[in-house]
């Protein structure tokens, strides 16, 4: 099996992209490294580069092969990688803490009990565990503005369901593999739906269409259904942001 043992690793992706991967599994330093490396790529401003992005532990770059060859981009990436130890990079600047009201369980989020049981907790313990401390946006992806949040306590290392839930609504908070996902649009999912928010994460008609950024943190707050109902008129669904210093 030809798995490179050395990280980070540079690989071509498609005919016009590269991935720079910092680990073979999710961990906090690799997540920070991916974010910091993408930021550095943006600062470099190589002329052929058309887009950069990150996922959990890798940075992505798309370029115009008419502007630079694969060999040139690969060499530039290797050079940039060697410039510092990216695993020691700090988290991005301008991070925010969002306090997000959510209704746990009830018919609005019908899988709380099932998820709690999978984690070996009572529903009450599950709510306490998920609201005790903030979770960090590790990446935005899959759907517009959709955050992957973590890392949850070890009890939450529960698998995704083998059978998909045919659809969870926008604002659904779902759990699996020590992560939470907050859904910006209705979607089928294998993650268990434990709480419901009315936080709108995608505003396509504005200059800042994606509300959350990697590195932001979310503190989920358990509220009653009436409280959440009152927050529906607010696009942020009652979520408040403060700067993290």
């Amino acid at each position, binding site marked *: 099996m030809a798995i490179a043992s050395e990280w980070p690793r540079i690989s071509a*992706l498609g*005919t016009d992209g590269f991935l720079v991967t910092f680990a073979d599994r999710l961990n906090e330093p690799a997540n920070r490294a991916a974010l910091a490396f993408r930021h550095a790529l943006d600062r470099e401003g190589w002329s052929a580069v058309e*887009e950069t992005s990150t996922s*959990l532990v*890798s940075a992505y770059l798309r370029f115009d092969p008419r502007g630079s060859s694969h060999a040139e981009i690969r060499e530039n990436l290797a050079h940039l990688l060697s410039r510092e130890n990216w695993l020691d990079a700090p988290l991005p600047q301008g991070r925010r803490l969002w306090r997000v009201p959510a209704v746990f369980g009830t018919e609005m989020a019908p899988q709380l009990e099932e998820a709690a049981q999978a984690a070996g907790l009572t529903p009450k313990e599950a709510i306490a565990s998920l609201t005790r401390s903030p979770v960090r946006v590790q990446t935005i992806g899959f759907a*517009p*503005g959709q955050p992957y949040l973590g890392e949850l306590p070890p009890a939450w290392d529960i698998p995704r369901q083998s059978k998909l839930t045919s659809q969870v609504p926008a604002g659904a908070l779902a759990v699996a593999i020590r992560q939470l996902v907050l859904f910006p649009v209705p979607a089928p999912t294998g993650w268990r739906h434990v709480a419901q928010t009315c936080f709108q994460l*995608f505003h*396509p008609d504005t200059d800042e*269409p994606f509300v959350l950024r990697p590195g932001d943190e979310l503190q989920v707050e358990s509220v009653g259904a009436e409280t959440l109902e009152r927050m529906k008129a607010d696009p942020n669904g009652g979520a408040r942001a403060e700067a993290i210093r």
Partner: protein
Amino acid sequence: MTRTLTVKRAGPGVTVQDLGRPGHLAGGLSRGGAADRLALAEGAALLGQDAGTAALEMAGAGGEFEASEDMRIALTGAPMRASLDGTPLVWDASHLLPRGGRLKIGGCEAGCYGYLHLGGGVATDPLLGSRSAHLGTGLGRALQSGDRLPVGADPGLRGTGQRLDPAARCEGGTLRVVAGPQTGLFTPEQIRAFENSTFRRDVRGNRMGMRLISDAAELKPGGGLTVVSEVIVPGDIQITGDGSPFVLLSECQTTGGYPRIGSVLPADLPLAAQARPGTAFRFQFVTMEEAMQIEHLEQERRQKLSKSLRPLLRDPRAMFNLLSYQLISGATSGDDLERENR
């Protein structure tokens, strides 16, 4: 007065599409845009306009349309039965759609996605830099009867009554592939099986991607390997839990955790997008150098499409089915002067 195209009736999968919204991967929004980019280029060549001009993409079936004033149109992609006031229209050609004339576009005769291009292009308000509907994320929607689409001003440089010979792409064939970040997770035997098997398109497929099935290849990556979710792009070939390849298309998500055996070259993606269930494919790895050469030639070919146009009426003696042609296309609709004087 604004030029409009009224949708009198629409199939379930008629949407406005252009080249999509590049640049939002970091926000979780994939580029999207027309499933068959070559068909967009062909329509643009027929009407002499930019390849990014928005057109109507018709999945499986078209609909009925009426123009508020005379418009140039072009039909490309999957061939569909089309007629203007009952007279059949040639596919892969440009025509005049006169004001009030009834354009009917039926089901696909081959392939999946047909395109109706308008001189001046569909001029709906762009959202995040594109007019493309991206249904999975709630951007835009499928067209419905009663919709009135604004159409841009048309300098009409190339007239109508032209045709081109489309590159065949509705019958499957060989998809050329470059290696990617996870190709090394597959054994040499699996790579050989991947290249030496015939795959057929499954019934499961849409603008996000298509599943392929084969009884020959055993492609499940071994060792219980899990891949951390990372950026995915159209063309990527994910090997799903049961060993079936899933080829990602225009409207795929932005990240995914299935191991990818490689990526289909953009030049070959129209073949994948236009495949109907049952269509047969083979995969062939090429080096990145070969891929660059193939892409370069394909881009050059697309840029020169307008040079390959020929008149629809060039030589009636060579047209064995003369009566099926729309002979007034390329001329005026005959009553233009009367209308202007009205």
